[in-house]
């Protein structure tokens, strides 16, 4: 039986839960493969040798993550980045917009309830800039999403086990959405506390909908629930940099009416899941080296 391992780095565990959300099919899968390492369901704690497929959940945030990641890469034939944190850095990537020392200082010394403050340093790993795992190891396949669809994880596993490359959606969330495409240019910016008009494209109404630059595969669940897409599945194949792409699109669509688009102020919308893999991150890293 082929050996599968699910290894977790900086993550919230949601991708692992998405995997478990295959529900009844989990029992079938467990008969067909050797699930040798899965931190939520299997007792083994060290990473086994001769792994056929390693699913890495989570991005890199500490030196310990890098060690685990490299160990997994050396022991696995195929390494898959599972979830947007592993693929792009995820929401924690937004932390890279802030100075790390100031951030640690705030959280461990300056919050309203902290009395004795100290930045942890004993028997704990070193905290570094958030990064997708591809910054440190070669990644064979990516399953994006926050979390990915359960079916998507399972289908990818099934393909990889057969020795095939899984297929991946190549369209955008916009293509899957029933509300679009935009028929008019947005007149003003809207925030989600304002209820939208029904059956009308959210981008057209001025919401920061990331659908046009985000990879398809989720069925546009969020726009169908009345909330703009926040880009959780990472950049669409043609949108090399998710934030730069949506900024470009928004200026094109709305520059006459809306002057306040700004990567700086709106990075939480434009780069929510992909900041750590953006071109801005590359530039900042170069800058940090240069400063030294």
């Amino acid at each position: 039986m082929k050996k599968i391992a699910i290894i977790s780095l900086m993550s919230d565990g949601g991708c692992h839960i998405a995997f478990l959300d295959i529900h009844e099919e989990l029992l079938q899968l467990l008969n067909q493969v050797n699930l040798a390492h899965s931190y939520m369901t299997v007792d083994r704690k060290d990473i086994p040798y001769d792994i056929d497929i390693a699913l890495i959940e989570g991005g890199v945030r500490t030196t310990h993550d890098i060690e685990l990641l490299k160990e997994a890469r050396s022991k696995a034939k195929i390494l898959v980045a599972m979830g947007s944190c592993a693929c792009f850095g995820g929401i924690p990537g937004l932390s890279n917009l802030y100075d790390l020392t100031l951030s640690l200082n705030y959280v461990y010394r300056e919050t309203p309830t902290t009395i004795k403050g100290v930045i942890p340093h004993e028997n704990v790993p070193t905290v570094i800039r958030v990064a997708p795992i591809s910054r440190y190891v070669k990644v064979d396949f990516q399953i994006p999403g926050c979390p990915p669809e359960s079916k998507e994880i399972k289908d990818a596993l099934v393909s990889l086990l057969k020795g095939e490359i899984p297929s991946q959606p190549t369209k955008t969330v916009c293509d899957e959405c029933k509300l679009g495409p935009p028929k008019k240019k947005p007149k003003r910016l809207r925030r989600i506390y304002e209820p939208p008009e029904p059956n009308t494209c959210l981008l057209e109404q001025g919401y920061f909908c990331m659908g046009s630059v985000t990879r398809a595969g989720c069925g546009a669940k969020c726009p169908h629930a009345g909330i703009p897409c926040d880009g959780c599945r990472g950049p669409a194949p043609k949108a090399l940099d998710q934030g730069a792409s949506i900024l470009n699109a928004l200026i094109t669509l709305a520059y006459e009416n809306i002057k306040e688009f700004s990567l700086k102020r709106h990075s939480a919308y434009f780069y929510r899941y992909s900041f750590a893999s953006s071109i801005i991150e590359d530039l900042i890293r170069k800058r940090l080296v240069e400063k030294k």
Partner: protein
Amino acid sequence: MKEFKPTIIAFLCRWSAYGVADVAGISKTSYPSNIRIIKVPCSGRVSPLHILQAFNNGADGVLIFGCLEGGCHYIDGNLRAIHRVKQLKEMLNIMGLNSDRLEMYLVGSCNLNKLVNYMKEFTERIRKLGPNPLKLKEG
């Protein structure tokens, strides 16, 4: 000390600036040789990603030339470009790159001298600012 020759990427709209620069070869006016020209169908084709990539790859300065207001072949591509450049300048400041390293000018289709002067002025500006601090470094 070896004199710093700035590497400048210039996006030239084919309807105005590019045609003008083309003519430079025939007339005896030359534009500075450190300017690398990229022909685009419209200044509006230049995306924020192109500009960021140019700096990421070590360009010391980025120039965009578009048509005069009201003169864009695609109606308002040049106006969109102006907005993009404005946003990018703000972004460059945050990343520690001087926003003067990016500039956009609107030129008509006849004025070679004006074009060349802009290029010379910009080259001088970049020479004073010095090389791109992010050149060839990786974190």
